[in-house]
C-alpha cells in the first residue's frame, strides 16, 4: 500500500498563480492557501503554506493563528508589521522587507500595512499545521462580528452606535482590507 499511498503522491502545487487565489479584493490583494485538502502530502508533513499579495497601503486584517505558528517570508515590497503577545505587549513592530523573515507565534495577534510603493507587499507564510486556521478580529466572520453589539458596548465602554460601527465598519471585507482613501499614502 505504500506505493499507492506515498510513491505516487502529488508533491507540487503552484501558489503564485493569481487565478488560484482563495481570497481576493481588487483594492486590497489576494491570499492563496495551500493546505492538506489541496495537497494531501502536507498531512504527512503537518505543514501548510499561504501566499499573499497586498496592494500599496492595503491592510492585513488583525488576526491570530488558531492552531499553528507561522514563519512569514517577504518576497517583494515591504510592510509595517506588528505582533502582540498575550500580555498585550508589542513583541514586533517594524518593517519586513524582501528577503526578511519573522515568526508569528500561535495565538499572537498580528496586523500589517503594505508599503506605499508600487509593488506593495508580497509574502509566503509557512505554518506548522497542515490545516492552519486563522481568526480575524474584525471584518466578515470575525471575532468581534460574532458577538452581540451590547457585549461590545459594555466591554469597550462605547455607545450602541459605536459598537455597531466596530462590528460592521468593514462590511463584508475579510483578510485584506482596502486602504482608507483607495489611493497612495505618504510613507
Amino acid at each position, binding site marked *: 500500500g505504500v506505493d499507492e499511498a506515498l510513491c505516487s503522491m502529488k508533491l507540487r502545487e503552484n501558489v503564485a498563480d493569481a487565478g488560484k487565489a482563495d481570497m481576493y479584493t481588487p483594492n486590497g490583494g489576494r491570499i492563496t492557501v495551500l493546505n492538506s485538502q489541496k495537497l494531501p502530502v502536507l498531512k504527512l508533513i503537518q505543514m501548510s503554506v499561504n501566499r499573499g499579495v497586498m496592494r500599496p497601503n492595503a491592510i492585513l486584517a488583525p488576526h491570530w493563528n488558531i492552531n499553528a505558528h507561522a514563519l512569514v517570508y517577504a518576497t517583494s515590497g515591504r510592510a509595517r508589521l506588528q505582533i502582540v503577545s498575550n500580555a*498585550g505587549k508589542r513583541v514586533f513592530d517594524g518593517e519586513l522587507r524582501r528577503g526578511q523573515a519573522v515568526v508569528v507565534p500561535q495565538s499572537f495577534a498580528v496586523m500589517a500595512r503594505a508599503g506605499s510603493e508600487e509593488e506593495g507587499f508580497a509574502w509566503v507564510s509557512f505554518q506548522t499545521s497542515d490545516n492552519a486556521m486563522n481568526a480575524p478580529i474584525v471584518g466578515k466572520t470575525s471575532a468581534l462580528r460574532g458577538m452581540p453589539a451590547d*457585549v461590545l458596548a459594555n466591554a469597550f465602554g462605547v455607545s450602541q452606535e459605536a459598537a455597531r*460601527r*466596530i462590528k460592521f465598519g468593514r462590511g463584508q471585507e475579510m483578510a485584506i482590507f482596502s486602504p482608507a482613501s483607495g489611493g497612495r499614502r505618504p510613507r
Partner: protein
Amino acid sequence: QMSAGCGRLDRPLRALEPTRRVESEAGATEFYDERDAQLSCAGLSAARIRIQRNGLMLPSYSNSPRLVYVLQGQGNVGVVIPGCPETYQQTTPQMKAPEREEYDDDERRGRRREESEESESEGRSRRGYEQYAIRDEHQRITAVRQGDVVAIPAGSPFWVHNDGDQTLVAFAVYDVSNNANQLDKTFRHFRLAGGQTSTQQGRQQQRKQRYGESESEESESSESEQSNESYNILSAFDTELLAESIRVSRETARKLQGRHDRRGNIVRVRRAHLRVLRPTTTEETTRN
C-alpha cells in the same frame, strides 16, 4: 510530560488551593499554581471564576482548549467559533423586496409608491452602517446553569454574562499539553477587551501550595506580594492603524485599546440587562 514534573509524583500528593487572584469590577478569577508538580505533570491548568450578578466576563481566547463546570448560578456563554457565520440576526424593517414579480395596474402603482419610499429610507440608512439592513447579528449563545459543562476550543474567543440572581461560580480546566497548543505548556490568556489587570500573587501562599519545592528555593522567596500586569491585545497596536483597519474614529480605537480602563476582566453591565438576540420560550412553544 515526564520532564515536566512527573518525576516528583512519587512523593505524597496534596490538595491544591488557588494561589493567584485577579480582581475585577464585577468578579474575580482565582488561578491554581500551574507550576505545581501535579498539574504540570498532567499538562493541566485550572482556575475558579466568580462573576457577580449582571457581571460580564470580557471576550478572550487561550492557547489551549478548556472545559468549564458551572458550580453555582446561571448565565449566558457566547463562544465565537472563528469562520462560522452569525446565525442569530435581527434585521431592520427597511428590507428590500426579494424580487420583482408581475402586478396588475393597481398593484403596480402601489408598488411604485412603496419602492419610492423604500429608496428614500434606503438612502437615509446608506449614509451609515445600516446599509446592511441588520440591526445586530452574532453567533449562537448558550444558556448555562449549575451542573452544566461547557467546552471551549483553543483559540475560540468567548464571553460570559451572569443574568441570574446570584454569583455565577465556575471551575475551568485548561489542557495546556493538548495537541492544539503549539506554544509552551503555559496557560496564556489573550484578552480582546478590557484594560490593565493586575494579578495579586501571595508568594508565601504559593510556596506553601507548590509541591516539591526545595528548602533553598523557599528561603529565597519574599513574603511580599507579586504583581503581574497585562493588557488586552488591541492595546499594543498602533492606534491609527487599528482605527483604519476597523474603520472607526481614533477615539473609538482608543476605547478598544482600553489603556485607561480600570474595570478588569469582569465588568458590570451598565443597564439592568444585557441585550442579546435569543429565542424566547413563547417562540419555542408557538404553534405552526
